């Protein structure tokens, strides 16, 4: 089964503006919430740290694949690779593609992320670990409950 994410968004902005927001590392960092140190270069690894509230300082790494101006920006990465003790490079990365299309209203942007079927099963759990609410919170609640109980029986 092919596991894939696809999202389309209509942007009321010229295609050149959208391209710049994607391909310029400083602009990308602003909206993605990253502190990126160097420009994106095809075939190279770019490192950054997250500035998103709650995830500050976490490492973010992408391997730039394609940069076709005003058409396609793509990279590979390891989604939810937030554990600094783990070497994720042994895993197959997923492919993220931003495709741009000029429209009357501005720009149509399609985001696809593919290759999830190659992710080891236990790594999918990381998605839940780093999620804001839902399971991550539930499991934390369970742990707290169990720890409290542990203290009481000592």
């Amino acid at each position, binding site marked *: 089964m092919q596991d894939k994410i696809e999202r389309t968004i209509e942007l009321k902005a010229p295609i050149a503006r959208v391209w710049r927001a994607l391909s310029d590392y400083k602009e990308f960092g602003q909206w993605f919430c990253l502190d990126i140190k160097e420009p994106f270069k095809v075939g190279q690894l770019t490192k950054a740290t997250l500035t998103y509230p709650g995830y500050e300082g976490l490492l973010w790494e992408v391997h730039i694949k394609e940069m076709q101006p005003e058409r396609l920006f793509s990279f590979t990465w390891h*989604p939810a690779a937030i554990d600094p003790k783990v070497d994720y490079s042994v895993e197959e990365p997923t492919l993220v593609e931003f495709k741009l299309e000029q429209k009357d209203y501005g720009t149509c942007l399609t985001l696809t992320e593919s290759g999830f079927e190659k992710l080891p099963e236990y790594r999918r759990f990381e998605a839940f670990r780093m999620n804001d609410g839902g399971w991550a919170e539930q499991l934390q609640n369970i742990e707290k409950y169990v720890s409290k109980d542990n203290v009481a029986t000592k």
Partner: protein
Amino acid sequence: MKKLSNGQPHSISELTKGTDLTRQAVTKHLRVLESVGIVNGIKSGRESLYRFDPEPLNQAKGYLDIFSEQWDQALNRLKKFVEE
């Protein structure tokens, strides 16, 4: 959870090792996870082994949904950024 998440079966002793939790606490924890279906107990000789089963998580919310939500949020930030 960390130890369990490598996908291998573990005994309660293994899971308790190196943590501050008592065996009792770990057992309780496992029972809860078993009750929601994300841990499976397997009898192996004298000790039970426990293994993480991602299927319920995969079905329940769908890990892809979580990644998708994160992308939705990021794309909305991009929209605000270019449209201002």
